[in-house]
């Protein structure tokens, strides 16, 4: 039956809505191969329909299968693209190596370009009123207080504050820090706010 390989791919995407999977090179290659075969069969049969009129129905069926495969592949890529967009907002412009290897080369190119675009846009904001850009990925929630208490959940190493102080972020240590400076680390899951 047609279009079964491609459904595997789609189901995989559906199962893990919240995370990104390894780019499925192998399955995609198989699907494209299937499409090449279908296309060739169709070309042969379409050329011979002049003698044998009854073949046109078969051509139609295969054509539908081709369109279906195309649709599923596009949907797979599109959904991954949306997730990669989220990666930029949640992991920042530099991806950790274990996330980086989930992307295909083409996707990584796209990520870099998206990242550059976003950075250029953020730099351009507020130029007319004398600011030098705003980081839109910060302050996603209104801050309730200037300083917050945080717990460090994984070893991060040295961290320099804006006033020049350097603190050591070691696992299970508590700190009292300006909210503006530690929120990025909280979003990356290195710190945790203590309420």
């Amino acid at each position: 039956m047609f279009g079964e390989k491609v459904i595997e791919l789609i189901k995989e995407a559906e199962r893990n809505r919240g995370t990104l999977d390894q780019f499925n090179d192998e399955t995609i290659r198989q699907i494209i191969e299937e499409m090449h075969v279908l296309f060739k069969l169709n070309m042969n049969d379409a050329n011979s329909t002049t003698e044998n009129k009854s073949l046109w129905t078969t051509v139609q069926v295969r054509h539908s299968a081709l369109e279906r495969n195309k649709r599923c592949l596009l949907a797979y890529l599109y959904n991954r693209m949306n997730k990669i967009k989220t990666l930029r907002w949640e992991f920042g412009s530099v991806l950790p190596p274990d996330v980086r290897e989930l992307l295909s080369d083409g996707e990584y190119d796209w990520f870099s370009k998206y990242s550059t675009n976003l950075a250029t846009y953020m730099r351009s904001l507020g130029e007319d009123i004398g600011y030098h850009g705003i980081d839109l990925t910060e302050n996603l929630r209104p801050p309730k207080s200037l300083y917050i208490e945080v717990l460090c959940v994984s070893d991060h190493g040295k961290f320099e504050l804006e006033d020049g102080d350097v603190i050591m972020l070691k696992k299970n240590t508590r700190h009292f820090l300006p909210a503006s400076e530690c929120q990025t680390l909280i979003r990356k899951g290195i710190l945790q706010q203590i309420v």
Partner: protein
Amino acid sequence: MANYLSITDILVTNEKVPCKFLHDLPKMGFMDPSATEDDLKAGTNVEIPIWLAESLHARRPPLVSVELPKIYKETYREILNADACTVDMHKLGQYFYELGCYIAKYDIKGEVATTLIDTFKQRFRMILSASVSTDSITALQPLSTSERDRTAGAVVTEKALSGWLKRGDCPLTTATMVANHRKRKRAEMEML
């Protein structure tokens, strides 16, 4: 085509419907599991995915005629009309409403459409009342996929609303995708 890139719509259109072929299909015998010949004869009844059925039905002249799957037929419609809330939607059809929207076109009398709306109205009331009270979600009859999503959405909204009404402060949290990625990595580590 609507929802061209939607994963859900692709899964919905993968559901099978019974069809009758109106023309001979040379070399397509493999579509009918019980057939022994290479060619598929006109008049054969085969279950094919609805994406294929839709596109073959749309050809001029149409290659297939689509029939109603059994869960949209008279017998099941009677059960649903009697009391939709007691039905196990998970078993009946994961994509009951979505598939129904496709199927409704092929029902000339329009009864499928009415059943869909009535079923939705009855079950929506049940889901809504269950999701604003805190305890009874698990007590519900198994739900279809879209109903489950809707329930989950309702619970989140309800929680957000009550948090806001209490003027609670919203602590900064780890971004969802980062958290999910971690969780999964941990699960993989444990499996090794």
